[in-house]
Every structure is written in structure tokens, then in C-alpha cells.
């Protein structure tokens, strides 16, 4: 009974913390600008099915792709086992689902194979990060917390799977010895390898081992549930909505700013009264482009929370490959850092936003980074879950130009040339057709 109460309290606490944090993230994401994702629903579902559920873009890099698939399958399928653990925990039963007979044996056997797969994949990932030190996994983007975060996740997953297998090994020994409560159920293809390790324990020792592994496993899972919401690992949930809201237009299509269109239409309209006061009903003019994280659309903020910092974008970025400061991954990480910061400040200030004098542009992302982008879309193509760092970069350039009039001198010259000659170079517009008379 005491066990059930402890379990109930733990479950309740974890659920509360998880729900509260989801609320914070949701509020932060929705502090962004409007973006319409309500159209083309069937295309959205199929994109999500292909890219998130089907991991369609992961296997572009086969080693990481297959290993990730193992962890993904393990995570989803072993969670069926969590249902039983929750049931047992709340009602004080043991292996409550054992009654389903042969299906139960098959399931437990399958979970064990998957648990082994997860351990193997996590060990490989750990070695890639810390032993082989793959460039994109040890880059300076990840210095400090992001790198620690990644390793915590891998180690915890290994420990959880090890606890799961140890629990099963102890259980199977208990079943053999026909100890009280340990019904004959399940098959143990992998955990049987651990049996020799524990076979020397007394009956009491076996029960203690089984119980402590059970508790370790479920407490670990609950703690992990809360942890992921503070971690890059949150992609396990957000990858689904993020791919649902994927950009379905050609990658080369950049939005036409409606606010600018209004101004241009007015300028081009010969009947418009140039001295007319702005209609009073209109909302105050929004900022042109993106200066702070709240100028981004909620979709872009969702992308920042979804990014799991794998760095495939950066490893395909021509600017980064040639030693420039720009790293598309860092753009996403800075965006998330900033919106988190804004969220915290708001919370501390009873929900009201008072400027802290900082901006995403300048304090988190530098002009040098923004100007190095070639708008080649390699980052978007590389992202396994369709995030667009390029979109944020180009939107921030808009703010640099249209709000701050800040650009490299040669870019200003290019603008002037287009304005005066209709071409980015200083050739007179009248000579545009001259090639037709040349040989």
C-alpha cells in the first residue's frame, strides 16, 4: 500500500511538472507572430507520416539513420511496457497483463531485443560523440551545456534499458524459484544473459533486486519525462507537430511581406492622397523583419524548440564548410535561448514584457553570421525534421536593412544600382538590350 502511495505521488508530481513546462513552452511559442498552417491538411499529414513517423530523411546518413531508428522503435514500443508498469504501480499488482498469455511472452521478448538495440545504438552514439569526436558533434556550438545534455540523455537511456533488463533477469530467477507473487510469465531472450550475474543472490536478494530495478526504471522514466522538456531531446515530441507544419512550398519561395506590399501599393497608386493620415482603426505598424525572437512566427519558434542540435545543417552549410562564423544550428539554438529568456523575464514580471535592452539580432546572432548565408537551402534540405534556419537568417536581414539600414557597403551600392539602373551593377539601363547588336 505504501508503495502505491509513493508511486501515485511520484506520478502526480512528474505529470504536474511536465504539464506546467508544456504550458510554458506553448506560451513562448505562441508569443510569435501569426502563421497560417490550416490549409493543405492531407499533405501535412502525409509529410508528418513520411518525415517524422517514417524517419524518411534520417537515413540519408546511414549509420546515424539506422542507429536512430533502433532507439526510435525501442522508445515507442517499449512504452507499451510502461502501461503495465503504471498499472502495477497504481494497483499494487505484479505483471498485470500476464494474463494475455503467449502474446505477452512475445511482447516481453520483443521489448528485450529492442532494449538491446537501444543500448547498442546509444553506445555507438556515445562513442561517436566522445571517442570518434565527429566534427559536427564536438563543434564549438555545443560547448558546455548542449554537449553535457547530449551525453546525459545517452547515459540515462543506457541505464534505463539496463535496469529494465536486470528487472526481467531477477524476475525470471524469481519465477524459476517459484517465489510468491512472481507468476510464470514473459520470455527473456536477452535478460537471460544477465541471469548468471544474479544467480548467486538469496531469494530476498533477488526480490530486492527486482523491486529496486523496477523502481529505478519507472522513476528514471518519470524524471526523463520532465527532463526532456528542458532539453534538446524534446524533439521526440515536437518533431511531429513540426513536420506537420512543414513548409510545403518550393524551398526557393520566400514570402512576400504583406506589410511592405501595402506600402508599395499605396506608393504606386496615383489616386492615393500622399498627405492622408493613416486610418485610425489600423494597428500600429509592426516591425519590418525580425529583430527579436517574438518577431518570428510561432512556427519558427516551434522549430527552435524542435531542433535536437544534430548539426546536419551546419555540416552542409557552404559558409560553415569554408570556415565562416555562420552555423545554421547555432541560429536555431540562439533563437531558443532568446525566446526562453524572454519567457522567463515575462514570468518574473507577472506576464508583462519589459524590454531587457537585448535583442536576438546583435546580442545572440551577429551581423557577420547573417551576411555569410548564400541562401542555398542546404540547411533545410539536410534537416531530418524540415527546420529552416535560412528562413530566420533572411528575416533578420530584413530587419537589418529596413529597420536599421545596416548593410555592408557593397550591398548598399547594389541596392542603389538596382534603384537607379534596374540592375545590381552600375550599367545604364538604356544599354540593357545592347547585346542584341553585338556579334
Amino acid at each position: 500500500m505504501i508503495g502505491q502511495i509513493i508511486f501515485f505521488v511520484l506520478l502526480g508530481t512528474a505529470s504536474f511538472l511536465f504539464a506546467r513546462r508544456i504550458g510554458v513552452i506553448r506560451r513562448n511559442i505562441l508569443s510569435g507572430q501569426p502563421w497560417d498552417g490550416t490549409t493543405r491538411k492531407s499533405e501535412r499529414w502525409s509529410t508528418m507520416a513520411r518525415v517524422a513517423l517514417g524517419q524518411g530523411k534520417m537515413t540519408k546518413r546511414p549509420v546515424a539513420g539506422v542507429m536512430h531508428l533502433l532507439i526510435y522503435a525501442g522508445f515507442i514500443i517499449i512504452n507499451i511496457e510502461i502501461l503495465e508498469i503504471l498499472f502495477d504501480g497504481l494497483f499494487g499488482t505484479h505483471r498485470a497483463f500476464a494474463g494475455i498469455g503467449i502474446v505477452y511472452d512475445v511482447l516481453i521478448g520483443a521489448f528485450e531485443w529492442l532494449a538491446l538495440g537501444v543500448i547498442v545504438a546509444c553506445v555507438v552514439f556515445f562513442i561517436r560523440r566522445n571517442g570518434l569526436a565527429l566534427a559536427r558533434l564536438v563543434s564549438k556550438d555545443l560547448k558546455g551545456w548542449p554537449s553535457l545534455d547530449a551525453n546525459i540523455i545517452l547515459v540515462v537511456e543506457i541505464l534505463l534499458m539496463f535496469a529494465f533488463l536486470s528487472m526481467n533477469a531477477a524476475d525470471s530467477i524469481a519465477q524459476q524459484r517459484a517465489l510468491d507473487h512472481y507468476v510464470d510469465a514473459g520470455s527473456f531472450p536477452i535478460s537471460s544473459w544477465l541471469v548468471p550475474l544474479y544467480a548467486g543472490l538469496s531469494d530476498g536478494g533477488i526480490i530486492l533486486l527486482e523491486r529496486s530495478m523496477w523502481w529505478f526504471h519507472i522513476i528514471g522514466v518519470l524524471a526523463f519525462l520532465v527532463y526532456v522538456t528542458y532539453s534538446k531531446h524534446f524533439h521526440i515530441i515536437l518533431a511531429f507537430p513540426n513536420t506537420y507544419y512543414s513548409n510545403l512550398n518550393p524551398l526557393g519561395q520566400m514570402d512576400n511581406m504583406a506589410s511592405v506590399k501595402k506600402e508599395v501599393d499605396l506608393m504606386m497608386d496615383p489616386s492615393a492622397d500622399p498627405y492622408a493620415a493613416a486610418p485610425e482603426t489600423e494597428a500600429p505598424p509592426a516591425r519590418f523583419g525580425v529583430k527579436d525572437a517574438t518577431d518570428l512566427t510561432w512556427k519558427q519558434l516551434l522549430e527552435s524548440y524542435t531542433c535536437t542540435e544534430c548539426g546536419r545543417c551546419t555540416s552542409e552549410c557552404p559558409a560553415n564548410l569554408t570556415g565562416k562564423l555562420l552555423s545554421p544550428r547555432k541560429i536555431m539554438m540562439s533563437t531558443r535561448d532568446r525566446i526562453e529568456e524572454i519567457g522567463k523575464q515575462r514570468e518574473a514580471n507577472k506576464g508583462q514584457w519589459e524590454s531587457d535592452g537585448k535583442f536576438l539580432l546583435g546580442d545572440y546572432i551577429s551581423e557577420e553570421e547573417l551576411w555569410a548565408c548564400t541562401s542555398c537551402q542546404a540547411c533545410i534540405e539536410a534537416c531530418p525534421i524540415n527546420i529552416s534556419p535560412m528562413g530566420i537568417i533572411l528575416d533578420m536581414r530584413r530587419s537589418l536593412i529596413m529597420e536599421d539600414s545596416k548593410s555592408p557597403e557593397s550591398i548598399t551600392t547594389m541596392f542603389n544600382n538596382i534603384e537607379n539602373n534596374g540592375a545590381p551593377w552600375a550599367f545604364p539601363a538604356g544599354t540593357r538590350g545592347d547585346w542584341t547588336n553585338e556579334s
Partner: protein
Amino acid sequence: MAEMTAAGQTPEVLFWVGCAGSFDDRAKRITKAIAKILHASNTSFAVLGQEESCTGDPAKRAGNEFLYQMQAAQNIATLNGYGIQRIITGCPHCFNILKNEYPELGGQYEVLHHTQFIRELIETGKLKMKSDAPFKGKRITFHDPCYLGRANGEYLAPREVIAKLDAELFEMRRCKQNAMCCGAGGAQMFKEAEPGNKEVNHSRTDEALENNPEVIATGCPFCNTMMTDGVKNANQESDVVVRDIAELIAESADLLESPTS
């Protein structure tokens, strides 16, 4: 275009030349090759000449949405004024912006990249290759322009056209969806690169040279400039030529029977 309209004629297609194609000496050779192909295939076409103006692409990608939309409004007024339906472009950046970004502002046209149009000419028999193909058996590698490939998913048209050259196409390590940029996009063409350890175009050209090509084929005047510079940087200009697909076709197609321009 103005002359044709004055004469009461409507061209089948409008050839959107673009700024590079109009003013840059190297790119003008590509423009002339496209024009030759259009003449040789008896395509009725027109150019806007002085009435064409920058699409606004470099301004937009550099953050100047105002300038872009002013340019777009002006160009759309011109194109709609002539009732243009079908446009072919010599530049993937013009292609992308006309095709994807002008419609919402009131400019709706069928837009083709020149490699798509050349493919159509060959498929419909309007353009025939010479029997003694000058590029027969030569080693060619093709550099995908970002704004044709990744931006618009067109990987086939340039390759199908290259196939008509009877040459041997060697794909680069990174090609199609994974192709590396030449370094000119996003207004980079008009500014110095940020500090780094290498130029993007040198890096990309090195990838192309891994195939030991005799010809590096391009489909974009900016890529052409970047790759040409890359080849020079690698001191390979005597062994490797950089040519637009239009130029390769103009040299390989049977242009003699057709009326001269």
C-alpha cells in the same frame, strides 16, 4: 518586344535575359547561345530590352523587401501590359522569383528555365543535334544551381539535355539535393565574403575537379562566374572549360539549316 507589339505580333515566349545576361561579358555569351537556339528552333520570341529591369532577387535576399516589391510591381506592369503568358529565363534566380514569388503580387506566367525549354525543343524535334557531336565522349560534370535544383526540384532537365551531347556525365560527390552552393547566392555575388579559411567557389570547384572533367557544365550565370574563377584558382584553365548548358547545346546543335539571326 515593343517592336513586335507595334507590328501586331505576339511572341510564343518571352526570353527574360536577366541582369547578368544583359551586362556581364561572360554571361552575354550564354544569352547569345540561348538566342541562337531560339532562332534555330524557329521559336517566336521577344526580349524586353530596356524595359526589362532587375527582378529584385538580390535585393530581396539581402533584406530589402521594399526595393524588391518596387521592382516586382514595375516588371509585372510591363509583363502584364504585353500580355505575356510564357517566359523562359537564362538565370535560375530570375526563374525562381518569377515562378514562385511574382504570382502573389499579380504576375502569373508559365516560367521555364532555359534547360527546361531546350529539353522541350529537343523532345518536340524542333532542335536537332549535329551528327558529329563536338562533345562526344568528353568528360562532363554538372554543377546544380541551388535555385533550379533544391529551390525548385528540377534536377532532370539539365541532365536530359546534357545526355544529348553524347558526352560522359560524371556526377559530383555532392549533387542534386545535396549539391554544394557555388557561393554566389543570397546576394553574396555583390559583396566580399565573410572571414573564413576558404572561398566557397574554390571549395566547390575542387569537388568538381575530383572528377577530372574536361567540361564543367552550369545552368546559371553566377555559378558560371564562380566556377570559372575556381578553375583559374586551381590553375586548371588550360584543361577544364566552364560552359553553360545553353552554350554546349548551341555548339552541338544543328543550327545551320535555320534562319540566321
